[in-house]
């Protein structure tokens, strides 16, 4: 039985360093190659030694697919391709290909230049790695090789986020990456067709959450920002440079305009302009409304939002600052946080999920004293607000996607074990399909049962369809007979006669003739007719003919009658049939030996 194996190297019952190995139809595919934000040691990257202990990965992998540009999905890519060694194709969408190297470079700078780590990938490695990238277009079927094909679907999580359908022969797997089933202010909703994969590998970040409407959350968010500004506080919104940031910027921009607010809004890092520019150039990846109106008004040209300078943090008065990164684990957002944490007028709004181990995660759990590097502690007095803006599907969304794709099996990754367990139960109950949730390094094996594609001769098919009538009759299924010829890699189904011809074989006729003596005091023709009537009544549903040349034919079995030379009342029946009618022939000879019933006319 063919099998599909799925092994998470990262994101197995965990969020962070997504990296999932899939073995399907003899092909090995790596889905995502991310880093873990909660760790600063070896655990930061997936454990590639699982694939091979020594040497390069090229010969073990047919391709690598990156779902989107978030570092927990692509952060380990240069390490994997340049330091461990992989030269095969890496697939990602155009926006991901454009933005991914920038975030990687950012990540490298923070790690190497600021934290002073060595043995890390270099700028050149990022460039070399990106040279191996093959861009993917939405819905394009990319033939990785003769057997393996992949197709990307819109995932709506961030600009360029994609789900991928991986297919080998008639087996297939869908990997969702991170996705969002409700359109937001800048992106559309994820969509997939009814592709019925053998396994649907889905993220499950919000496996147990059903979120209230987006509008309410937006209103809440604006209210909180507004209140804080009113009382002269500073609002810090840690974000990743691309994604939520743009959504919230659009939200604040329109709010500021409507309310005629004057407090400044800043966006940290030099990436701002650039980031917004990506959105302008890849506008086809945003939601319908933005796409429709972009000629008149480009939503990514902000009037109220200005670039941030480090010195502004100490300016008096209210302000809103978007700063990177989103989980407060390093960089500018952390610096500003340290500055503002002591004042209860200030506020930090966490608009997304925070990985365990990050400061974001700690303050969200209500920690009021933080241990910082160098054994100092930081008192957290400012208001901490959490607002789920990260664009992951919630439980409802995940169920919705299952309904869309109709998978035969389900596999959960990118979530916490306890929550997964709950969702798994729900899925198994609602859809009666198996649901797997392997931990890192654990393999889930799914046996598939693919049908076998065969070339059927059109003659045979047409004959069969004509006989079968326009509508199938479920009570009386028609049986079709043919010969399957297996030659090299081709499978052909033809009628037996054609099979003989195609194989260059002669047909060997096997015939049987049987004489049966019968006491029947009638003339030969009458006897024949009596036989005909008798058979007619016994054999229902068979073609029985009384031919003018003095024979009776049952299907292709010939029955003749002659009188015995000695006794005219003794009739000799001659039955002749071919091997193909053996069952019927044998039955008839036995039947007729018993004589004809009386009362026949």
């Amino acid at each position, binding site marked *: 039985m063919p099998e599909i194996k799925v092994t998470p190297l990262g994101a197995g019952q965990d969020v962070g360093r997504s990296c999932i190995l899939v073995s399907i139809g003899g092909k090995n595919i790596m889905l995502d190659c991310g880093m873990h934000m909660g760790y600063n040691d070896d655990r930061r990257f997936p454990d590639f030694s699982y694939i091979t202990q020594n040497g390069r990965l090229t010969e073990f992998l047919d391709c690598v697919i990156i779902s989107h540009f978030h570092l927990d999905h692509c952060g380990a890519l240069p390490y994997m391709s340049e330091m461990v060694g992989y030269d095969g194709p890496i697939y990602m969408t*155009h926006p991901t290909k*454009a933005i991914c190297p920038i975030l990687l470079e950012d990540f490298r700078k923070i790690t190497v230049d600021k934290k002073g780590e060595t043995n890390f990938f270099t700028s050149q490695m990022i460039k070399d790695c990106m040279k191996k990238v093959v*861009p993917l*277009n939405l*819905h394009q*079927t990319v033939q990785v090789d003769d057997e393996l094909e992949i197709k990307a679907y819109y995932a709506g999580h961030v600009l360029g986020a994609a789900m991928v359908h991986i297919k080998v022969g008639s087996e297939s797997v869908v990997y969702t990456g991170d996705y969002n089933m409700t359109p937001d202010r800048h992106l559309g909703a994820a969509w997939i067709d009814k592709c019925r994969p053998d396994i649907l590998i889905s993220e499950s970040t919000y496996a147990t959450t059903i979120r209230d409407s987006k509008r309410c959350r937006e209103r809440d968010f604006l209210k909180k920002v507004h209140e804080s500004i009113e009382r002269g506080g500073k609002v810090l919104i840690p974000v990743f440079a691309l994604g939520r940031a743009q959504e919230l910027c659009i939200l604040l921009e329109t709010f500021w305009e409507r309310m005629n607010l004057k407090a400044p809004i800043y966006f940290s890092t030099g990436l701002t302009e*650039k980031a917004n*520019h*990506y959105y302008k*150039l*890849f*506008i*086809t990846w945003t939601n319908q409304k933005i796409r429709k109106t*972009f*000629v008149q008004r480009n939503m990514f040209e902000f009037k109220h939002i200005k670039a941030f300078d480090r010195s502004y943090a100490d300016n008096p008065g209210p302000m809103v600052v978007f700063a990177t990164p989103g989980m407060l684990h390093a960089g500018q957002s952390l610096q500003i946080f340290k500055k503002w944490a002591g004042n209860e007028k200030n506020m930090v709004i966490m608009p997304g999920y925070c990985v365990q181990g990050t400061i974001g995660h700690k303050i969200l759990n209500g920690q009021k004293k933080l241990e910082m590097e160098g054994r100092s502690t930081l008192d957290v007095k400012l208001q901490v607000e959490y607002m789920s803006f990260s664009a992951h599907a919630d439980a409802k969304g995940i169920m919705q996607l299952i309904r869309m794709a109709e998978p035969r099996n389900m596999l959960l990754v990118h979530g916490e074990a306890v929550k997964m367990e709950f969702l798994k139960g729900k899925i198994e109950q609602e859809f009666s399909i198996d649901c797997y949730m392997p931990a890192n390094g654990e393999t889930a094996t799914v046996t598939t*049962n693919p*049908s*076998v*594609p*065969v*070339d*059927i*001769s*059109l003659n045979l*098919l047409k004959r069969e*369809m004509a006989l*079968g009538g326009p509508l*199938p009759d479920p009570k009386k*299924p*028609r*049986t*079709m*007979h*043919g010969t*399957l010829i*297996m*030659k090299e890699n081709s499978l052909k*189904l033809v009628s*037996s006669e054609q099979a*003989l011809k195609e*194989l260059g*074989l*002669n*047909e060997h*006729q*096997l015939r*049987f003739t*049987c*004489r*049966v003596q019968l006491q029947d005091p009638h003339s030969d023709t009458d006897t024949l007719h009596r036989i005909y009537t008798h058979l007619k009544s*016994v054999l*229902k549903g*068979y073609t029985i003919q009384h031919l003018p040349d003095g024979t009776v034919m049952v299907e292709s079995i010939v029955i003749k009658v002659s009188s015995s030379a000695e006794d005219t009342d003794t009739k000799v029946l001659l039955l002749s049939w071919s*091997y*193909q*009618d053996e*069952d*019927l022939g*044998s039955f008839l*000879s036995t039947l007729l030996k018993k004589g004809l019933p009386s009362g026949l006319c």
Partner: protein
Amino acid sequence: MKLYCLSGHPTLPCNVLKFKSTTIMLDCGLDTTSVLNFLPLPLVHSPRLSKLPGWVSKDGTINLEKELKECAGRVFVDAQPEFCLPERELLDLSTIDVILISNYHCMMALPYITEHTGFTGTVYATEPTLQIGRLLMEELVNFMERVPKAQSATCWKNKEIQRVLPGPLKDAVDVWMWKRCYTMQEVNSALSKVQLVGYSQKVELFGAVQISPLSSGYSLGSSNWIIQSHYEKVSYVSGSSLLTTHPQPMDQSSLKNSDVLILTGLTQMPTANPDGMLGEFCSNLAMTIRAGGNVLVPCYSSGVIYDLLECLYQFIDSANLGTTPFYFISPVANSSLEFSQIFAEWLCHNKQTKVYLPEPPFPHAELIQTNKLKHYPSIHGDFSSEFRQPCVVFTGHPSLRFGDVVHFMELWGKSSLNTIIFTEPDFSYLDALAPYQPLAMKCVYCPIDTRLNFHQVSKLLKEVQPLHVVCPEQYTQPPLTQSHRSDLMLELQPPPMPYRRCSVLSLPFRRRYERVYILPELANSLVPSEIKPGISVATLSAVLHSKDNKHTLQSVPKPPPAPPSKKRKRVIEEPPVVLTPKPLLSGAVPLEAFLATLQKHGITEVKVEETADGHILHLQAEDTLIQLEEDGTHIVCDNNEPLRTTLRDLVLRFLQKV
């Protein structure tokens, strides 16, 4: 498989392919050359055009003063311009399942088809094709509606009258097919039927065929199409280009192994080299400006104009044109320039790389930013106050019959300082200029047609090797004006099948196989036996299920166990239920070996008699005959069923079952 040809225009095709129970329209081109027979529609009142004399036949018997006007020695129809539609009578267009669009120039007849024929299907196109196609239609509608002309002219179309008209009106064909432009409402409704597709996306049509667009390299989002089943493949090649301009390069290799290749949309200017033309364009432009004249470039608002602007971007400074204003005037100028920047996926590699930086892929963004290029929706409004001369104006329509270009013709035509440079190849420039004669303005003809030329196409066909090629008849002979140029036609072996408007071609196809899927349970139950080295056969009995043109074979369900019958006595008389028929047999029964086998089974008294075709074995003790021949065995056995079955099984041992 049949091909219905609804358009005679080789670059504005409209064909319908019937293939495996699907009806597929390939492109929906609108032949606009008919507008050359009409008077221009001036944007501002033109005393010259309004005072033209009406036409009366020489003998005075036919008076069409109202409909026809004499202008510059020719006769023009004075009514809203009309277009020549694809044929609508050749087949019932409501039966069309899908329409495949290859590029935005080949979809302009779409509203006529989707809105007025009972069409209920789907139109497939790429996103740039849809968006830019929409702009071009919007522009066309705008051009027409801006200058409303209530009058429609039909008298001249009367056969008896048309016959006596002067040329070229006299020779105009299918004039009753000519129709006025559609409305924006019809455009919106037509385009709402478009389903977007990406290159190499595989789309299933009713489970019967699969269609897939391929990059054709001609314009943004332009595509060729593959229409295939598991066994047959038709390639539809429409406007394609191998030149490196802005679009993604042409995908040639996917065209390989086609049974039929339908070839349309070759260059209309086989003797004009696009690069040379571009050079000539630049030098004429610079010369005119230097001499203090204006340059008018009648053009479509998308397509080659992007390349012209890019070329000028590089040329402006070296030619000292830094201060010359460039104007692009069209109701969709802004949209066209904006849209061109957002289709990174559909651009050539160089331009894609720019987007990764992130920079706009086309340099016209910079021309706009530095105020060198300005765009306006029309000559009215801002343009009239900001307009400076000498300048360069890009505007439509290239036929010079409507759009803002008409105004510039009236304005600049009288001065020999000005130059009009034709770059679009769709219209004969002499015909386009006819109603403006006499003209003092210089005319330069630099048609830029990047589509495949005959040299490129024969190389391409050699590469992809289709079994049969179908093409417009124009491609099977040299152009009329250059009848000695045998290099300007397709020469193939076997020769291409030519079509013309209203042709119905039977495509040379023999379908022999269809795909069927054997369900795993049935597949596992098959018992293959090797007949020849490497070839195995298995007899198969199954139930065929056909749904949505997909066929599957399932195991035959076991009959439910017969209910315990009370009349046991009669059971024996139940005829056998034959579930699987006996296989065919092959091979021969060798005499010696067979005799030996008989002996093993205790049949020893065998008399062998030789006949013409084999042997007759007489089993004397059993009074049974076996006739052994090369291609048959006949067992004659009376009243001894056990013996007969034994003999049967012994014979079967020597034969192969198929």
